C-alpha cells in the first residue's frame, strides 16, 4: 500500500491524534456507564477467579503451564481488557449504514477506516484509564496476582494491548461492514460473539486446548491476538523469546485486519446505497 507513507505524515498524524482525542472525550462524558461497566467486570472477576483457582487446585497447582497467581492475573487482566479491546457490542458503523448516516463519514477528507480507528484508539485509551484500572486495583487488593518479573514486560504489555485493540477493531469493523450487503447483521454479530467468547481466551486460556487447536487458533485466526496474547505477555508465559513471538503474531494480524478492512470498505462503497432522503 502506497498510502502508508501519507498516513504517517505529520499532518495526517495530527488529524489522527485529534480524532483519537475526540474518541477519548466522547467516552469520558459517560461516567456512570463507565462505573457500572467496571463494577460488573469486577464482580465477574471474583466469580471467574474462584473457578480458575479451583481448576488449578484440582490440577495440583499448575494448569496448562499457568500457576495459581498467573491464573488469577489472567482473569483480572482479562476482565480489564474486555473493555479496552471492546470485545462486545460495537454496532455503530452498521447502525450508520442502516440509517444512511454513514454518508457523513464518506464526506470527510479522511479514509473512514482511519477515522474510525483513531476514534477507537481514543476510546481504548479512556477504557485503559478507567475500566482497566479499576478492576485491576480490586484484583490486586483481593488476590495474590502474578506481577511481571522482567521490567521490559511492562512496555511490551502496552504494545500488546495496542495490537490487540487494532486487531479487535479490524474484526469489529469487518463485522459491521457486512451491513452494506445485509441490512440486518444480527446473525453475523452472533457468530462474532461466539468466536469472541470462546476463541479469544475469554472463557478459558487457549492453552487448555490440544496443541494442534492452539496452533490453528493462533496462526490461522485473529482471535487469540485480541485477548490471550496480552495476557500471556503480562504473565510472562514462556521465555522472552516467546513474548516476542506473540507480539509478532499480533502485529501481523493487526496489519492483515486493517488491510482487509480497507479492501472490503472499497468494495462496500461501490455498492453503497445511502438509505433515506
Amino acid at each position, binding site marked *: 500500500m502506497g498510502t502508508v507513507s501519507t498516513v504517517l505524515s505529520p*499532518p495526517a498524524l*495530527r*488529524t489522527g*491524534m*485529534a*480524532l483519537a482525542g*475526540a474518541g477519548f*472525550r*466522547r467516552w469520558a*462524558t*459517560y461516567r456512570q456507564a463507565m462505573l457500572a461497566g467496571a463494577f460488573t467486570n469486577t464482580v465477574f472477576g471474583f466469580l471467574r477467579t474462584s473457578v480458575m483457582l479451583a481448576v488449578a487446585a484440582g490440577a495440583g497447582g499448575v494448569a496448562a503451564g499457568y500457576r495459581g497467581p498467573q491464573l488469577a492475573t489472567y482473569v483480572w487482566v482479562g476482565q480489564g481488557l474486555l473493555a479496552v479491546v471492546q470485545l462486545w457490542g460495537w454496532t455503530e458503523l452498521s447502525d450508520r449504514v442502516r440509517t*444512511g*448516516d454513514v*454518508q*457523513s463519514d*464518506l*464526506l*470527510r*477528507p*479522511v*479514509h473512514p477506516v482511519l*477515522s474510525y480507528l483513531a476514534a477507537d484508539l481514543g476510546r481504548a485509551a479512556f477504557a485503559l484509564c478507567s475500566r482497566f484500572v479499576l478492576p485491576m486495583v480490586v484484583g490486586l487488593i483481593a488476590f495474590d496476582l502474578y506481577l511481571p518479573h522482567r521490567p521490559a514486560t511492562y512496555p511490551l504489555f502496552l504494545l500488546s494491548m495496542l495490537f490487540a485493540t487494532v486487531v479487535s477493531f479490524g474484526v469489529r469493523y469487518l463485522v459491521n461492514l457486512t451491513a452494506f450487503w445485509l441490512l440486518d447483521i444480527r446473525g453475523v454479530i452472533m457468530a462474532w460473539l461466539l468466536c469472541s467468547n470462546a476463541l479469544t481466551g475469554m472463557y478459558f486460556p487457549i492453552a487448555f486446548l490440544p496443541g494442534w487447536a492452539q496452533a490453528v487458533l493462533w496462526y490461522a485466526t485473529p482471535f487469540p491476538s485480541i485477548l490471550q496474547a496480552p495476557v500471556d505477555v503480562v504473565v510472562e508465559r514462556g521465555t522472552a523469546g516467546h513474548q516476542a513471538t506473540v507480539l509478532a503474531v499480533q502485529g501481523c494480524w493487526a496489519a492483515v485486519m486493517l488491510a482487509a478492512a480497507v479492501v472490503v470498505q472499497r468494495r462496500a462503497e*461501490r455498492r*453503497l*446505497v*445511502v438509505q*433515506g*432522503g
Partner: protein
Amino acid sequence: MPLIETTGLRKEFTVRRKAGRFRRRRHAVAAVDGIDLAVERGEMLGYIGPNGAGKSTTLKMLTGVLSPSGGEARVCGLRPVAQRTRLARRIGVVFGQRSQLWWDLPLRESFRLLRYVYRVPSAEHAARLAECRRLLDLDEFLDTPVRQLSLGQRMRGEITAALLHGPEVLFLDEPTIGLDVVSKQAVRSFLADLGAAGDTTLVLTTHDLADIEKLCRRLVVIDHGRVVHDGSLAELHARYDSRRRVVVDLDAPWDGTPVPAGATVETVAADGFRVTFGLAGGTAGDLVAALAGTGSLRDVSVLEPDIEEVVARLYAEPA
C-alpha cells in the same frame, strides 16, 4: 469550464416488489434519469422538485457518496466517486436530515476537530469561525453537546461546519427544514451574503420556495429524475404567463372604466368595491393613473407573481 458539470447523469435503484404470494420481482427504478447540468463558479442554483424527484440522489452523486448508474459528473474538475477524498476538501455539504457534527461533544469541539480533519491553517479557521459565530448567533450554545441542541441551533452549527474549510461549492439539501421564522431568516441572509461575496458556488434544494426567491437567480426544476425547467424565476413566470396583480379599493362600485392596454380585470368583489387587475404588460403606474382619473380610488396594492402557484403548476404537468 463549469465548476459542476453533468452529462446524462443517471441513478437506478433496484427495488423488490411483491409479485404474487411468495414471489418478489426485482425492479429497476430510475431515481435520476439523465440530467445535464452546468453550473459556473459563483452561481447560486436552486435545485427543486416534488418529493421523490431525485434531488437528494443527485446531490449524493455530486458529492461522491453514491456511484451513478450512468452518465458523468465533474465537480471542481474531479470525478466525485473516484476522487471523493480530494473533492471533500473542496466542497461543503449540509444534508438537513443528517449531522456531520460529533453527537456527544460540544459544538465548539466539533469545530476544533474539523480544523484537523480538513487541515485548515489555524488563523483561517479562526477567522471563518468568528464570522459564523457573529452572523449565525452561535455563542449561546457553543458549549452545548450537539445532542442537546434544538434543530435550528444544530442547523446553524451544520452550516458553520460545512464552511470552516472554505469550500468552493456548498451543497445544501433542505437547510431550512423545520426552522422557525427567525432562524430561517438568519440562515437565508447568511447564505445571501455568502453568495454575494461571489467565491462560493451554492447548490440548494428546498421545499420552501421563499428560500429560492431570496437566494437563487437560477432555478433548475426536476421531476421524475429529469430536468423540466432550467432558467430564472422570471422565465418560469413567463412560461406560465403568471402576472403581477394590482388590487384596488374604490369608494364607489366598479363601473367598468377603460384601463390601459396590458391590464385586464381578473376579479371584482361582490359588492364591487374591490377589483383585481392582471398586468401582462404596461406598468402599475399607468393603471393607477387611469383609475385615479375616476376620482373614486382609495387604496392600491401590487402583488408580485406567486412562486408557489407557478411551481405547483409545473409539478402538476405530466413529466
